[in-house]
């Protein structure tokens, strides 16, 4: 099976004034296709940096990042944007929906950015994925007319609609109550199993870790542990 992403001795150093701050100090990881993986660790451990590297939002200062078998090194900002558009989905802690667009229009956006020109096709795909995340009746509502959990469902639909290789979720449950958080995790796990899309989370939340089939713990920019729990406790 091919890897969804591969990190080889990845380093990322930020420069703050004359100071060099290492955020990731040599991480090698292979994320298999169909993974459902959590990256955990205290603040400053490098998990957000790692997620940004996996999301092609940032490029490493050392080592190699490959996503869908393609290295991100040397890509221009524009090529990175196109690459994200083609291969990656994002779910954010604060949902980050566009408030002036309806759920349907928010989910349609990635397809337009990907250049899916056929309106009927876009409409069909948007409606199918919104139905999949349980929002069949709320498609024409704006984000302000939806609950937090519903908004995160829209965000998941937006991430999945273009059938990406990898979905990256940065603390996806941090702004949700625990019952809703559980529902959201179960939804993502279900989509992961049905579609085979790989998911990687960064999290503090034990609930997210509990749902993950693989848990990578970071400490000081290095992998402290890499635990596989196949068939794991995610199925409740």
């Amino acid at each position, binding site marked *: 099976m091919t890897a969804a992403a591969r990190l080889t001795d990845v380093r990322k150093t930020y420069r703050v004034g004359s100071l060099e701050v290492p955020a990731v100090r040599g991480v090698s990881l292979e994320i298999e296709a169909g993974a459902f993986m959590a990256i955990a660790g205290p603040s400053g451990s490098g998990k957000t940096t790692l997620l*940004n590297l996996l999301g092609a939002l*940032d490029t490493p200062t050392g080592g190699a990042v490959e996503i869908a078998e393609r290295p991100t090194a040397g890509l221009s900002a524009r090529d990175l944007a196109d690459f994200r558009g*083609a291969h990656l989905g994002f779910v*954010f802690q604060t949902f980050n929906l566009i408030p002036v*667009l309806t759920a349907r229009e928010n989910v349609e*956006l*990635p397809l337009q950015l*990907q*250049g899916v020109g056929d309106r009927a096709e876009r409409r069909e795909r948007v409606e199918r994925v919104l139905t999949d995340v349980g929002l069949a009746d709320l498609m024409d509502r704006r984000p302000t007319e939806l609950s937090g959990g519903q908004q995160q469902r829209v965000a998941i639909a937006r991430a999945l609609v273009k059938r990406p290789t990898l979905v990256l979720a940065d603390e996806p449950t941090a702004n949700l109550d625990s019952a809703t958080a559980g529902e959201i995790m179960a939804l993502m796990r279900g989509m992961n199993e049905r579609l085979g899309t790989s998911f990687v989370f960064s999290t503090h939340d034990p609930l997210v870790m509990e749902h993950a089939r693989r848990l990578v713990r970071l400490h000081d920019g290095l992998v402290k542990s890499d635990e596989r729990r196949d068939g794991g406790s995610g199925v409740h």
Partner: protein
Amino acid sequence: MSTEARAGRLGPFTLGRLAWRNLRRNRRRTWITAVTVAVAVLLLQFAMALMMGVERQSFDNLINYQTGHAKVFANGYYAAREDLPLDRGIAAAETLQVRLRAVPGVLATAARLTFQAQLSNGSDQLPCVGIGIDVGGSDADVFRIPQAVTDGVYLEPDRLGMLIGGGLAEVLGVGLGDWLTVLAKTRNGAFEAVDLEVVGVLGTGNPAIDRGTFLVPLVLAQTMLAMPGAATEIAVRFRPAAREGATLGRLRGAAAEAGLDARGWREVESDFLALVSAKRTGRTVALVVFLTVALVGVTNTILMAAFERTREIGMLMALGLRGAGVRRLFLAEGALLGLLGGAVGTLVGAALIAWLAVSGLDIASFYGDMDIGYPVQDRIYTAFDAGALLFGWLLAVALAALASLYPAARASRLDPVEALRHV
């Protein structure tokens, strides 16, 4: 792979819809900015219409009272016209005028004899321009002098009378029924004087005429200047529907055949037209600068909008929107502000301009008798020109987009990681 070409950007429809809804996010700010744009565009439209109206009126004035559409001179007269030379006259003969009137597009011709003279009221003496006009004949077919008589009557062929500009009459302190002495050098260099009664006062709105010209019957001028049957020029009026350039070309041909020199009014009045053109350029530059300054509000609005939506920009970039796409989104918002404000300003402006094009603006109450640099008087009528209105509107759109260029470019250069971290 035709869809690949569109990757990384939003289509025009999506872009427009998003821009419109984004503007509605902060309606008060949008309206305040749009109203600023509207007021600026309204002033621009009004100023342009006023400028065009004054120019059109000026040109009509020159044609109606001073030059007609063209003048035919003897060869060599035009170059020396400032001196009003009498030794380069032409025959005022009807046969020549018949030939000129036969030119297609020509409506009427009139012989005129223009000369330098001194006007004296007995105590003061003023240098003036005298013009002998064909009173019984065709002068009134070419010029609108009878309509410009504000006091008294038009000249009569067999009466020793003169028409005098209103300003000149005031300076000389004369009115209807008063007598003035005309002193002029004849063609032979001798001085000749004749007393004439003021039978009418002219108010053409053209300072050159109202303040420095008097009119006498052509025969009287010919006799006085020892130039029987002669004129210095034949003024020509074109038919209303005639194409000016083509008619002038034919007239030139006919004049050349007769050994004469025809000049269009734009050439005869080239100094004035150059002045008008310079004024127009200066004012247009001033207006565009003014509009640009007014549109700084758009820059500020887009700058604030982009700042408020930093995280959203990061999200859109994460989704695959290129920097150029971000730039286009904010440019579209700025242009839309220009479109909205420009539409309001243009509509209100069009209504105002349409009204003043009919009723006119009373400038006498602003300026009194002061010379405003154009031969117009009393009322200015704005020019209602749909093309100019559209131009003003589109200019507002273009300048609003231009005003958004800086904030849009700034937003497009955001680093998605930084932008997503923004709170």
